[in-house]
């Protein structure tokens, strides 16, 4: 159904960014309030679309009135409503907690920060909604530039991080362009659905493998930024709140784009996985899940959050490897859960730093009695990410395990169980350290209930925790109404296109 709402959702943050940047010279409060208002409108609008009109199917908008595959198509369905809503949600919460005063290290106008924030959010929304492969490249570069300049606002010590982020992000986008050049040269189209149709006709498997390698490389660059070693080194000087946006939202949007390319563009029936790739895929999943082991040995909360976040990506990649309808449903549910849980963990780590520091491992001992709110929040988001019922993370992993079991993929089922076991071990160890450390006397401790200055952070954490719980409670309805209809046609028992897109012959 052709409708203007998808383009409205995409344009909203960009138009807002322009106005906010124009207001940057004025009082900081104006630009901040406007930016927050725009993000809130985006969030409410996504929720409205999800609950109301969009539930009947998907909506399209053709830029300039040019129908696909010739023109650029913007598309939204129930799952994309959820993803867009989460991007706006985390972006709103993060900006709400950000300082809006110029500091000694960052003397720039805060309005510029707000404008760049909207630009970065808009780029991610654009990446989610567009069905044109070249427009995806433009949004990738726009995100890299907006985020790079944003990091650079942190002062002279952050310039090297900003250079590295912008440089390697652009190199990633160049690899994407290289994969796209191959696909375009062989098919003559840039529309994602039409690419699938053309590849289905040509069955050019060599082309699919080559493009697949380049596209994986391109989206791999942003994933590298989320690995704990790079994360800590790169962004030590940057705004900590930006890490939340980067670690939870950006990484998961990139993983979702990988899903789109693997299963909606390159995943044509009859394409069997060679042995070398199957081994490589399984090693990749194991590599990610090793991060759970590393989290066990880590003490600093921010780094623990980064390890758990990186480890959880392993579940998503296992879902890609299994590649069945149940596995992909679990994967998409897992992506939604990870956005909320990772954001929550990073918010808690920042909250902890603001209330007395957490770099010293000894600070864990008895924290459950000293600062019960903090400890409870950390445990809740940890449980969400690791997948303790009734939180959303459990059901995504359950779908994945069921898929591995039904396909007799015993190695992947074993890896899933091992990762889950490691996660639970980590939780058990943390509960022990927080509440029952050796030689700790509870009687000597006076609990400090956090309030006053950290009300914004604590409210945000409560809201995120409710979201995590809602994801678990409504997982069945989400899977039925939002996730399964968003799966590629081959996974919904629908007929695949037997002729070029829209029945039109493409040169």
């Amino acid at each position, binding site marked *: 159904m052709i409708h203007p709402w998808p383009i409205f959702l995409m344009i909203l943050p960009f138009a807002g960014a322009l106005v906010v940047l124009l207001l940057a010279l004025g009082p900081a409060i104006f630009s901040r309030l406007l930016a927050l208002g725009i993000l809130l409108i985006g969030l409410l609008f996504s929720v409205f679309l999800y609950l109301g009109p969009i539930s009947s199917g998907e909506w399209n908008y053709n830029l300039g009135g040019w129908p696909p595959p010739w023109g650029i198509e913007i598309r939204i369905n129930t799952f994309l409503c959820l993803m867009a809503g989460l991007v706006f949600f985390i972006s709103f919460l993060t900006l709400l907690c950000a300082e809006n005063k110029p500091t000694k290290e960052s003397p720039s106008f805060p309005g510029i920060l707000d404008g760049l924030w909207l630009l970065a959010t808009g780029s991610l929304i654009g990446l989610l909604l567009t069905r044109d492969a070249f427009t995806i*490249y433009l949004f990738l570069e726009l995100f890299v*530039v907006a985020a790079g300049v944003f990091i*650079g606002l942190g002062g002279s010590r952050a*310039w090297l991080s*900003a*250079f590295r982020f*912008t440089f390697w992000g652009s*190199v990633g986008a*160049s690899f994407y362009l290289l994969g796209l050049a191959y696909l375009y040269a062989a098919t003559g189209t840039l529309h994602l659905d039409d690419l699938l149709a053309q590849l289905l006709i040509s069955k050019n498997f060599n082309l699919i493998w080559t493009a697949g390698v380049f596209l994986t490389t391109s989206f791999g660059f942003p994933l590298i930024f989320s690995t704990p070693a790079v994360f800590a080194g790169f962004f030590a000087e940057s705004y900590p709140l930006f890490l939340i946006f980067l670690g939870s939202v950006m990484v998961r949007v990139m993983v979702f784009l990988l899903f789109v390319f693997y299963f909606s563009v390159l995943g044509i029936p009859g394409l069997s996985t060679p042995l070398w790739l199957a081994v490589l895929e399984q090693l990749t999943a194991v590599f990610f899940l090793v991060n759970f082991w590393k989290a066990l040995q880590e003490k600093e909360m921010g780094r623990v959050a980064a390890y758990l976040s990186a480890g959880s990506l392993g579940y998503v990649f296992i879902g890609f490897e299994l590649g069945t309808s149940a596995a992909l449903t679990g994967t998409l549910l897992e992506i939604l859960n990870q956005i909320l849980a990772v954001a929550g963990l990073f918010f808690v780590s920042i909250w902890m730093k603001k209330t007395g520091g957490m770099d010293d491992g000894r600070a864990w001992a008895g924290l459950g009695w000293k600062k019960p709110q903090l400890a409870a929040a950390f445990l809740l988001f940890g449980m969400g990410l690791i997948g303790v019922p009734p939180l959303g993370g459990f059901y995504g992993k359950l779908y994945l395990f069921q898929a591995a079991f039904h396909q007799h993929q015993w190695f992947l089922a074993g890896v899933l169980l091992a990762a889950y076991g490691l996660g639970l071990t980590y939780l058990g160890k943390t509960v022990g350290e927080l509440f029952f450390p050796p030689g700790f006397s509870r009687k000597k401790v006076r609990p400090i209930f956090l309030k006053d200055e950290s009300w914004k952070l604590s409210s945000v954490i409560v809201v995120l925790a409710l979201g995590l719980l809602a994801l678990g409670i409504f997982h069945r309805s989400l899977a039925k109404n939002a996730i399964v209809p968003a799966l590629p046609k081959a996974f919904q028992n629908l007929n695949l296109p037997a002729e070029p897109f829209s029945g039109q012959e493409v040169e």
Partner: protein
Amino acid sequence: VNAEGAGFIHYGLISLVILTGIYGLFSQNHLLKKLTAWGVFQTGIILLFISASEKTEAPRPLLTAGPSSGAVHFLNPLPLALAFGVLAVSIMVAVILVLYAWSLSRETGKWDEDSIHRKLSP
């Protein structure tokens, strides 16, 4: 050289440009040399796009006074437009990266990434 050989040389040269760029990305430590390597890599990709518009003995896609013989007989203009798009984006990114590199060099007196990192570390 026949058409197949010419195509082999053409795409071989483009591959060489791309590989030179990729090698430079990972081997260079000087910020401006890194940027140059990225430029070379990007140039190779743009050449690949332009090559996709190629048709045997087809004229450029420009309107002429003579009778039109249909779009199918002209070079494909879309890859050329995409190449311009890539060029514009690359210039925007390169300007920002050069500004960062220049600012870092002014701050530390170095162009080398490792030395800058050491100087900026507390």
